[in-house]
């Protein structure tokens, strides 16, 4: 009996065919639902007119960079994202540190803190708009029943209020990320530090925080990315107002695209925001890599 000779080239060729056959739906999907749209958004951003069919070159970009409404919206969005980053790190880490102790009922607390993460932005928006309403809202009704003055939350500090509401939803997620990071720090480091006489405060600054740096970096990257593309909060809670105080950029883009029907101009703004997001991510990752420590 003659054994068939295994020829590696044809064999790998056959597997390559299988690989491509299996990949075919994915190649089509990412081509038509990602790469074609990305090409189209850039192409549209270079055009103008109600049908976005007249060549405009970089006109839309020049207009966007000179448009005070866009600059304001960008500033609003940046403030929102920074608030998200700081809030996520401070609150998420604090809760994770509390939950990392040998306490009874940890699982219950973890579940309770994570529950808002499951809600749609529609719930976050509608529920908090009701709770914070100056007259109807339960918060002011309780304050007034207690003899305290009611607050116009969404008038006096609208941007911080919607940032806080967003944190209400996301803090459980950040907490779980920090918890996983904390559990990755070997107990022996703490024991060694204790023997050396380091108090809890020093152990936190010298061991926990440096070794948690990769998690902190990931949390801040995620918070910036999601903060810069927040939409529902402005659409549902404030309608961008009062005035334009909460005119988050994606909400601004949405209005230019679907209310003003200027696809060229809104596409240019989308591309600019994408560039900002990618730049932020790259800068954060670079800075994070430089600050990384190992013991």
């Amino acid at each position: 009996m003659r054994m068939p000779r295994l020829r590696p080239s044809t064999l790998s060729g056959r597997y390559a065919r299988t690989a491509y056959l299996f990949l075919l739906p994915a190649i089509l999907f990412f081509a038509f639902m990602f790469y074609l749209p990305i090409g189209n958004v850039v192409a549209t951003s270079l055009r103008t007119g109600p049908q976005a069919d007249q060549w405009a070159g970089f006109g839309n970009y020049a207009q966007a960079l000179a448009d005070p409404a866009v600059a304001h919206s960008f500033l609003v969005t940046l403030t929102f994202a920074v608030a998200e980053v700081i809030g996520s790190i401070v609150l998420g880490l604090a809760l994770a540190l509390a939950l990392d102790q040998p306490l009874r009922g940890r699982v219950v607390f973890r579940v309770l803190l994570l529950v808002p993460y499951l809600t749609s932005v529609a719930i976050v928006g509608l529920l908090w708009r009701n709770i914070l309403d100056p007259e109807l809202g339960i918060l002011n009704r309780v304050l007034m029943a207690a003899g305290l003055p009611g607050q116009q939350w969404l008038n006096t500090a609208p941007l911080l209020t919607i940032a806080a509401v967003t944190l209400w939803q996301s803090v459980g997620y950040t907490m779980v990320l920090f918890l996983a990071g904390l559990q990755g720090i070997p107990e022996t480091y703490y024991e060694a530090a204790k023997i050396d006489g380091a108090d809890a405060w020093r152990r936190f600054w010298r061991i926990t925080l440096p070794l948690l740096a990769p998690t902190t970096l990931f949390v801040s990257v995620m918070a910036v990315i999601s903060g810069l593309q927040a939409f529902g909060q402005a659409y549902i809670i404030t309608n961008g107002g009062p005035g334009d105080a909460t005119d988050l950029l994606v909400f601004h883009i949405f209005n230019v695209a679907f209310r003003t029907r200027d696809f060229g101009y809104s596409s240019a703004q989308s591309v600019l925001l994408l560039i900002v997001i990618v730049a932020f991510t790259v800068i954060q990752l670079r800075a994070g890599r430089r600050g990384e420590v190992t013991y």
Partner: protein
Amino acid sequence: MVRKSLLYGLLALASLVTVLPLLYMVSLSLQTEAETLSPDAVIWPESPQWGNYAELFTRAPFGNFIVNSLVVAGAITLAHLIFDPLVGYVFAKFRFPLRNTLFVALLATLMVPFFVRMIPLYVLMANMGWLDTYQGLITPFLMDAFGIFLMRQFIQPIPDDLISAARIDGASELAIYRRVILPQTRPALAVLALFTFVFQWNEFLWPLVATSTPEMRTIPVGLTLFNQEYFTLWHLTAAGSVILFVPTAVLFVLTQRYFVRGIALTGLK
């Protein structure tokens, strides 16, 4: 001792802040219209108005919203379960020309937020006549790089020998995938299904852009636009919010371990 009660105090306070608003949402959904408008602080309705839930269905096509949400989130989850592990398997275990290029092209899509695709997808769907249809709502989310990457990471440690042995036994490539690989990925598939379903169930921006008739709206969008139309009927908006929230809450309670592990996984490098 003091330290411990301090910790408990902090955690209890934080839990109240996260949970009380949602409980208030339930209370609001059972109040009369008068109670929602009264200047007194109504913590719990005098007599729970279960009829609010029925009234919601007469004021808006809420049955449609529920069906639409189930169809869209269900179909997208199913597509992820079919495609993400298959593509992950190919990138984990096959050698073929352009493999690295394609993998980088796939991972690059992780950097593309949805708003970038929003306008061109709207134009594309409009040209195909797919606005206000299920296929229009579903197609943009059939797969994603994150799910594929997750499955690839999970499949990589499966020994190559298992695959070679099955090939020598004459199993077809599809059979190897279905009988050898897929059964080992079950825990990861559960996490993938859970996250995909919850995210799609809650998705807001695309259904808002891609639907125009009330009958095609999903719950988050239908509810928000209902609230814009009947902005004084807070008890009904709250009832709709409860309906939107309950399925994810039930899923979460049943699977919270998977859920927590899934989040921790997203934070791994």
